[in-house]
């Protein structure tokens, strides 16, 4: 299986001590690395207000992990661990690689277009625009 990219967000009870959150993160990280995956990013957003009440909490401690893995059971295992943990009140995994691929493709297309465009279009715009290609043209060749 090709490698996939996931966003894993989970919310802990706001009263959870910091060490315990770190512990959860490290166990998750272990689970990922065991399966030949990688944690690209670890972000602790800290306690923030949630948009609605979750298990009677109005605030939650948000943690974001960006996980890269090519094994299919990774996410399954991560979610199982989060489900088991009492401190975690909510979690979500989002597969991101498709979106990122699309983003990259669009970006490349835009760059290609931008590279193709400058000479014919710029003089048509205005005088300040017309001065630029004169300066830019010598740089290109």
């Amino acid at each position, binding site marked *: 299986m090709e490698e996939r990219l996931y966003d894993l*967000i989970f*919310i802990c009870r706001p009263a959870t001590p910091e060490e315990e959150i770190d512990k959860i993160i490290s166990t998750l990280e272990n689970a990922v690395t065991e399966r030949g995956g990688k944690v690209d990013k670890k972000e602790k957003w800290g306690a923030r207000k949630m*948009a*609605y009440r979750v298990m009677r909490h109005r605030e939650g401690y948000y943690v974001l992990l960006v996980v890269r893995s090519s094994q299919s059971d990774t996410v399954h295992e991560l979610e199982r661990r989060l489900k088991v943990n009492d401190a975690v009140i*909510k979690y*979500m995994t989002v597969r991101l690689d498709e*979106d990122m691929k*699309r983003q990259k493709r669009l*970006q490349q297309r*835009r760059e290609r277009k931008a590279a193709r465009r400058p000479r014919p279009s710029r003089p048509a715009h205005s005088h300040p625009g017309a001065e630029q290609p004169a300066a830019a043209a010598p740089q290109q060749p």
Partner: protein
Amino acid sequence: MPDETKNESQPNPPQEQPKAAEAPRAEAPHAESKPAEPRPHSPRPSEGRPRSEGRGGDGRGGESRGPRDAGREGGKRGRRGFFRKKKVCRFCVDRVDYIDYKKPEQLMTFIQERGKIVPRRITGTCSRHQRWLAEAIKRARNIALMPFGGVR
């Protein structure tokens, strides 16, 4: 032959009079409406009356539409009608390739008070970006970054 003399003296408007008189009445509105558009001023009152007996009603209706577009009454209408500013997709302007669900502050502008996603006919978002936006909002809702209903 009064018609011919008129033709020579006044180049454009009377040309239609003989045509309209000779041609069958069914064709009259067609023949008339075409030349009426470019110069709406002179021919209209003179022609409208003689044909008002039978199909005159149709003829006038067809005719009156032309000049309105061209200018006389149309000018007033155009000014009276309110001009709507063309809406542009905000994401297209910023060249957005991916709408991040982890930034609820940005998404908040695209939901209504009660948490509904604002339709794109109101925000002007293009269809592609609206799709991405809806996806992002739904993800954000799922993880309590954005409300499902009103903010409590």
